[in-house]
């Protein structure tokens, strides 16, 4: 059992090279996996999966009436000759999968043993690697982090990675994220939604401990063509602080906004906290279900191999 952390993990314990994020053994085991979308999306380039987008593929799907602005190249002139009306030919295309992994790099993630942010980076790296090896179009985004000057960096992203050879680039980008800012979840989700390119799978890695609420942020990305997975990452010390030595008269300081709460930790208070945590996670889960978002609670003490190879496969995110 680990002791209750007194602050963010020391820099020495943070991953510094790609091998720290994903090692060769795990990569070999992940080579056989692929990301599953519960929906069929159209991609930007021809990929390895069937898209609902009717386009330039050879597989005919349907006709629809021409409207102003349609590409005249897809007008079925034969029908026009016969019926004197303009129809467009619609084809089903084999398209690639767009996949975006959003990592919460706010201060609240930079805590725990193992640290939530490091766990999220390793998970993002593994998921991204699965996307790359399956020729999906992989984008990564991070919000709440700091830039080189230590200022809030806003939304950081790397887009449109494809193919195994981009693994190193993706890993380097993840390693360069500096956690430590405050919040920004809603703004990040809004910007991602506005700048989305195509449709696909979105995996949000966060603890979702947003004081201004997670609802509006998730609303931006839900129902807009994304198959959203909300993976709530919590440290074991958050889930059961009593078991990890949290007791006594404490002044609790919020990592993000320095807000303080004075607590005399006893059995009753710990029990109340657990009830609140369960209620909070339940509210997040209910919110996700209502918006067809898959919610997964991840304890950072869970072995990453087991999470990827077993748990997420059962949950249907991977296959």
């Amino acid at each position, binding site marked *: 059992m680990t002791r209750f952390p007194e602050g963010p993990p020391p820099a020495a314990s943070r991953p510094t090279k790609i091998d720290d994020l994903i090692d060769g053994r795990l990569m070999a085991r992940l080579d056989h996996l692929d990301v599953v979308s519960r929906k069929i999306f159209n991609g930007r380039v021809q990929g390895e999966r069937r898209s609902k987008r009717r386009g330039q593929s050879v597989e005919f799907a349907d006709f629809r009436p021409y409207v102003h602005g349609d590409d005249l190249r897809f007008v079925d002139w034969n029908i026009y000759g016969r019926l004197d009306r303009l129809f467009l030919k619609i084809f089903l295309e084999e398209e690639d999968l767009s996949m975006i992994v959003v990592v919460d790099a706010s201060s609240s993630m930079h805590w725990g043993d193992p640290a939530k942010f490091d766990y999220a980076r390793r998970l993002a790296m593994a998921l991204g690697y699965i996307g790359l090896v399956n020729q999906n179009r992989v984008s990564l985004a991070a919000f709440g982090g700091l830039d080189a000057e230590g200022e809030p960096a806003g939304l950081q992203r790397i887009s449109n990675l494809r193919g195994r050879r981009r693994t190193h680039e993706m890993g380097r980008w993840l390693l360069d994220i500096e956690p430590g800012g405050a919040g920004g979840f809603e703004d990040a989700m809004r910007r991602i939604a506005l700048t989305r390119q195509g449709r696909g799978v979105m995996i949000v890695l966060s603890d979702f401990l947003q*004081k201004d609420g997670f609802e509006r942020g998730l609303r931006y990305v839900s129902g807009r063509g994304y198959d959203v997975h909300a993976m709530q990452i919590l440290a074991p010390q958050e889930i059961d602080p009593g078991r990890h030595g949290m007791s006594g*008269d404490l002044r609790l300081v919020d*990592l*993000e906004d320095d807000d303080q709460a004075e607590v005399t930790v*006893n059995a009753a208070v710990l029990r109340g*906290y657990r009830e609140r945590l369960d209620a909070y996670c339940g509210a997040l889960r209910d919110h996700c279900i209502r918006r067809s978002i898959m919610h997964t609670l991840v304890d950072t003490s869970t072995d990453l191999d087991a999470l990827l190879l077993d748990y997420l496969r059962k949950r249907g995110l991977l296959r």
Partner: protein
Amino acid sequence: MTWLTPLFGGIVLAAVVPPLLALYFLRLRRTRRVIPSTLLWKRSVEDLRANAPFQRLRPTLLLLLQLLLLALLAVALMQPRFDGGERRDGRTVLLIDNSASMNVLDGDDAGTQSRLQFAKASAIERIEALHGGGVFSGSAAEIMVVAFNDVAEIRTPFTDSRQAAIAAVEGIEPTDGRSVIGGGLQLARAFLTVIDPDSQTGPVAAPAALELWSDGRITDLGDQVLRAGETIDYHRVGSMETENIGIASIAAQRPYDALGQIQVFVAIENPTAARRSVDLQLSVNGAVRSITARKVEIPASQEKPGLGQVAGRKQFSFAPFDQERDAIIEVLVLGEDGQPIDNVAALIVPPAKRLRVAVVDAESFVLRSILEGMNLKSLDLLDLAEYEQLAERGGLDAYDVIVLDDAAVKAMPPGRYLSFGRTPPIEGVTEFGNMATGVIVRRSSEDHPILRYVNLDELYISSMHKVTTGPGVTTLVESGDGALVVAIDRGPVQMIHVTFDPLDSNWPYLRSFVNFVPNAVEYLGGLGEALATTGIAPGEPIVTRLPDQAKEIRIRLPDGSEESVETGDPSNLAWGPVRRTGLYELSWEEPGTSDRRQRVFAVNQLDATERRIDAAESIDFSVDVIGGSAAKAGGTRWQDFWPWILGVALALMILEWWIWQRQSAAG
């Protein structure tokens, strides 16, 4: 109910309650912990609201218990107690009689408490009543405790400590001594005397209140006078009806013509107003030898003009009985009365022995003839040179009595001497001036054993040595020119000295000389000692002479306990003063012998004042008559509440701790 220090408790209460409430108002001192988000904690912890500064104070059981605890502590500090009555500032001397008569078991109505026990309880009650302050009070009466019997003992000098005064009273032990108050008054006055170096009038005796616990039967009361400013309260202890008879004197004698026999004489006194008849029992070495065939009738006391109440007296002599060896003689008055210790008297009779006598420089044929006519074991005639040689090498121990017949001896080694003429070289007798001539006897102590049947009316002395006497010297016969016969007690040296040579007088021709010489020799040799010995009285020391080589000296007390006696000079041993009556057995070891040798001493209480045990209604000082009031004890005694309150507070504290533990564990 009274409060000794209410202000103090109030101040403490005012000082500690606000901080306690403030502790409940104010935040606790907390450990800083960094966490990802306070979101859930703020939502879940009600405690957060309670810890906000100066929010509404929520009534909690713990707070109530703590307030109650503080209130109890403050009440304890106020020192609540029952008010026992009068309080008096200033100095008070408590005089407590612990003489023999205070051992009578009529202190309370049930007869289970001795007078001394009752007096102590009453005195303690009085201390608590007198004591003006408690633990935290600055003003308190000063109390001095004096216990007196034959000797007075300061149990505690003036103290403002109630505990010290009570402990002093509780530590007073019973004795079988006489009741002599003079020493106690002197001690009290000595402590009351204020010596002011700036005063022109000398030491000033501060007035004091004296309080006396006694049965009023005090030997020297008539010799005492209350000084100006002194007051005395007499707390009468004991019943005024208790009756008692006792042995007034005891003696034993070996008849001159039958040294192997002992005859015992005893006198019984009855200080009560009614005739009494009792049986007497005689024991020898612990075995009952005889009991009187008929009851001995003792007349009642009588009021005699000028003498007051005179006790009835009856003398009784037991029939002589054979006893060659030494014996412990005990006479017991059978039957019960108020004071048991004077119903028994003991006496040690030395073994029948014939004396070894030496005469130094014998000039008087009359003296030699008288000695030769005595039933002595040996009679040696020594000249001065032989005496000095024996004195030098310690050979004089072979003689029981040494007679110096106008001998100019230089040394006086330990021994017993009968000296005539020249003044011996011994401390206490100093010759002065020229020889006195034409001397006749003016006064003689006829009750002394050596002057028994010695009529000196016709004695005429042509010349005598004029001497002055010092301490330890008793003049037995006196003339107009000084002492004629003195008894000198120098511990290991006992001497009867006659300050004239019998040949310079007509004494050798008088019958009194024939009686005097055997009396003196027997007295010094110890044969006549028993006849005059009434044992040792309580309050006196045991003084005896042991061999120089005596070691491991121990004394067994009447109660069976044994004490070691430390002395640097066994030849001049003194132990005591003795406190209780009975037989004291002194034992020691000598080199070359395996058995311990022993010597027994009898301590008897034969004092007439102590025999009278009915409590006196008043005590008569030589000037003042002080009426007494019955001492009170066992009634409402001052009770301090604060120790009980502290006990309750402690229990409350434990209860609070237990509740806090339960709340912490179970929420």
